[in-house]
C-alpha cells in the first residue's frame, strides 16, 4: 500500500503510541480530581501544555486543549465574535476549511457581519482585499496558514503586520510538520492545530490563544481550561500530541528535504505526461502536491488508484464519500470540469525515498486507461 493522503491524516508515530499507553492503564485519572490518580493525569496534562507552548513560542496558559482542528476553529471564530454577548464581525476567505466557513455562516444567523474574500487566481489571498473588508465591527480575521487542498501558503505574517484592531486567527492544521510555527513571528492571536496531521492521535489539538485575548466559550460545562473549554481533560491525547510535536520539530529540517525531493520526483514525472501543477509559482507546503490531469475524472482515477493499493484524494474528505466540486477550486475561479480533473497527493512522515516516483507511476497507470 502506498499512502499519499497525509493531509487527510497521518498514521500515528510509534513513540506517540508508546507515550499514550500508560493513560490506558494506571494513569487513567480525571485531571480535575484531588487524589493521586487524578494528579498523575493532571501533571501529565500540564507538562504537555508546557511542551506544546514551547514548540509554538507561546506560554503554557496560552494553550487550550480542544478535540482538534474543527473545534479549535469553532472556538476561535465564534469565541472571538460572540465575546461578552457581542455580535462581532468576521472577515475570512473562501478557501478556508469548512470549520471556519460554517462557523462564519452560523454567526451570520445571529447577526454578525461576515465577509468572505475570494483568493486571487493564483490561490493566494490578497492582503489588500482582506484589509479593505475590515470594519470597526470586525472582531476577528481568519486566514489559514496553508490550504488543505492545494497546499498553497497564505501571507499570514504580512497580514498581521498591517492589521490593526481585530484579532487574527490562522488555521495552521496542515502546516506543523514542515513549517516552523512561532506565534510571535506569525503575529497571530489565535492558531489552530490538529495532532493527527503530524503523527499524533485523532481527537486532540491545541488552540493557541494569545494572553489577554477574551473568547466566549463554545463548550460549556465544568469550566476546564480556565473556562475556555469545558469537558474532562484528554490527558492521553495531550501527551500523544506533544510527543508527536516533539518528533515533528526534531525531524523538521530533514522532513522538508525529504518531502521536497519526493514531491519533485512525483511532479516532474507527472508534468512530463501532461499534468499541471497547482501553485507551482507560489509558496506551498513541501509535502503537498495538487495536480490537474487534463480530460480526467478524479473520481474514476482515485478508485483505480485505490484498487491498485494507492490511497490519494481529490480534496477534503466528505461525509457521504461521494465527490463534490471543491469550494476551494471554485473560489480560485476553476470551473467544475477543470476542478473535476484535479487530485491531491500529500506525503508525510512515513514517506520514504522512492515513494514520489512510485506514486507518479501508479497515477500514470490509473490515468492511462481512462478517457
Amino acid at each position: 500500500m502506498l499512502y499519499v493522503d497525509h493531509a487527510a491524516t497521518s498514521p500515528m508515530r510509534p513513540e506517540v503510541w508508546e507515550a499514550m499507553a500508560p493513560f490506558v492503564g494506571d494513569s487513567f485519572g480525571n485531571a480535575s480530581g484531588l487524589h493521586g490518580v487524578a494528579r498523575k493525569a493532571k501533571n501529565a496534562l500540564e507538562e504537555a501544555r508546557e511542551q506544546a507552548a514551547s514548540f509554538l513560542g507561546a506560554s503554557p496558559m496560552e494553550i487550550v486543549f480542544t478535540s482538534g482542528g474543527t473545534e479549535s476553529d469553532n472556538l476561535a471564530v465564534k469565541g472571538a465574535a460572540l465575546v461578552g454577548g457581542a455580535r462581532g464581525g468576521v472577515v475570512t476567505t473562501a478557501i478556508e476549511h469548512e470549520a471556519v466557513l460554517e462557523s462564519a455562516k452560523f454567526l451570520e444567523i445571529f447577526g454578525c457581519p461576515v465577509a468572505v474574500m475570494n483568493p486571487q487566481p493564483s490561490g493566494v489571498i490578497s492582503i489588500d482585499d482582506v484589509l479593505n473588508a475590515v470594519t470597526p465591527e470586525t472582531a476577528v480575521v481568519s486566514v489559514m496558514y496553508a490550504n488543505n487542498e492545494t497546499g498553497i501558503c497564505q501571507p499570514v505574517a504580512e497580514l498581521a503586520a498591517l492589521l490593526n484592531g481585530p484579532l487574527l486567527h490562522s488555521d495552521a492544521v496542515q502546516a506543523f510538520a514542515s513549517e516552523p510555527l512561532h506565534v510571535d513571528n506569525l503575529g497571530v492571536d489565535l492558531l489552530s492545530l490538529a495532532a493527527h496531521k503530524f503523527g499524533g492521535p485523532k481527537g486532540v489539538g491545541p488552540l493557541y490563544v494569545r494572553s489577554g485575548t477574551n473568547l466566549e466559550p463554545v463548550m460549556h460545562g465544568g469550566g476546564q481550561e480556565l473556562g475556555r473549554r469545558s469537558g474532562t481533560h484528554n490527558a492521553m491525547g495531550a501527551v500523544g500530541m506533544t510527543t508527536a510535536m516533539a518528533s515533528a520539530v526534531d525531524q523538521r529540517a530533514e522532513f522538508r528535504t525529504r518531502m521536497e525531493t519526493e514531491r519533485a520526483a512525483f511532479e516532474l514525472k507527472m508534468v512530463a505526461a501532461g499534468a499541471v501543477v497547482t501553485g507551482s509559482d507560489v509558496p506551498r507546503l513541501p509535502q503537498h502536491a495538487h495536480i490537474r490531469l487534463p480530460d480526467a475524472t478524479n473520481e474514476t482515477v482515485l478508485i483505480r488508484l485505490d484498487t491498485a493499493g494507492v490511497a490519494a484524494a481529490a480534496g477534503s474528505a466528505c461525509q457521504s464519500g461521494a465527490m463534490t466540486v471543491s469550494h476551494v477550486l471554485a473560489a480560485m475561479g476553476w470551473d467544475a470540469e477543470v476542478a473535476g480533473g484535479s487530485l491531491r497527493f500529500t506525503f508525510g512522515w512515513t514517506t520514504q525515498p522512492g515513494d514520489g516516483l512510485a506514486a507518479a507511476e501508479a497515477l500514470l497507470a490509473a490515468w492511462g486507461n481512462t478517457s
Partner: protein
Amino acid sequence: MKVLVAMSGGVDSSVAAAQMVEEGHDVIGVTLKLWEGPNGEAPTAGCCTVSDSEDARRVAAQLDIPYYVLNYTSAFSQGVIDKFVDDYLRGWTPNPCVECNRSVKFDKLLNQAAEFDCDVLVTGHYARVQETGGQYRLLRGLDSSKDQSYVLYMLKQEQLAKVQFPVGEHTKAETRAIAGELGLRTALKPDSQDICFVGRGDYRDFVDGQTDVATSPGDMVDTAGNKVAEHTGVAGFTIGQRRGLGVTFGDPRYVIKVEPATSTVVIGKKEDLETVDCVLSDLTWIGDSHEGSATFQYRAHGEPAACRVEATEDESWLVTFDRLQLAIAPGQAGVLYQADEVLGGGTITRGT
C-alpha cells in the same frame, strides 16, 4: 472475473454482491448518489438515503470488497429528472426507472465499469439474461411477482453481454433466505416502493417544487369539451384515476386525459378509457425485430395483453390488442414479450 456491483442498500443488490463474492470474483461495490437536496444533503426518505448507502457500505465491508459512493447527481438530473418534469408537463405519465436504466445505470455506469477494468456490471434486478451462440436474450425474473424485465427493455446486445442479474434466478423469498443465511444486515429490510428521488412525499409535491404549472387551477371537462367543474391543479390527476375527482355523477367517471398546457382535465366513462390499439415510438429490439403476435405490458406489474404488432410508415409501431385494454397512458413504457422473453419495447406515444 472482475465485476462492479451497483448496490442500492437493499436486500436484492446485497445478495447479488454476496453471490459474486461466493463465486470467487473480484468484486467492487458502488452506490450511485443520484439526488440531493438544495444544500447537497442526501435525501432522508425513499431510496438513496444516507441510511441506504450506509447499509450498502456495511454489507460491502462484511463481504470485504472495496466500496465507493459515486456522484451521479448531474447525470441523473439531466437524464431522469428533467425528462420526468418535461413528460409530466406534456400530460404524459413519466417512467423515471426506465430512463434511469437507459441513461444512468446501463450507460454511464456501464462505461465506468470498464474504466475500473470490470468485465461485468451486476445489479439486483429481477430479470434473467441467457446467451446462446453469442446471442443474448432477456427473460423475466423467475419470481413473476417481482419481475423487473419491464424496466430493462432498452438493453441492447452489447449491454446484455456485460450485465448480470444474479437474483433474477431466485424468488424474493429465496433472496431473503440467502441474505439471512449469510447474515447480511439487509435481509429483513422492506422493499422500497417509492420513486427514489421523491421519497415518501408525493410526486406531485416534487413536480410542484420544480415548476408552478402543476398547481395552476383549471377546468375539468367532459369528452365533448363541456366544463363540468374546476380543479386546483393538474398535478392531482393521472389517467385512469377514479377517486378524488371532486365531482360525482350517477355512474363512475375517470380521468381520460390531462393537458397541463391548458390546465385541463378531461373526464369520461369507463368505455372512454378503453382502447383497441396504441402506438409505440423509439422502439428498440433485444434481438431481431418482430412483427405479428406477442404480448404487451404497459405498466410495471401489469398483466400482459395478447396483441399483434406491426411497423407503421413513420418508424413507429402499432400494437393492436385481441381484447380492449383500459387506461394506456402516453409516456409509459410499452414492452413486447413472447412468453417470458422480452422482444423489445418503446415509449407509448398514443394510448387511450
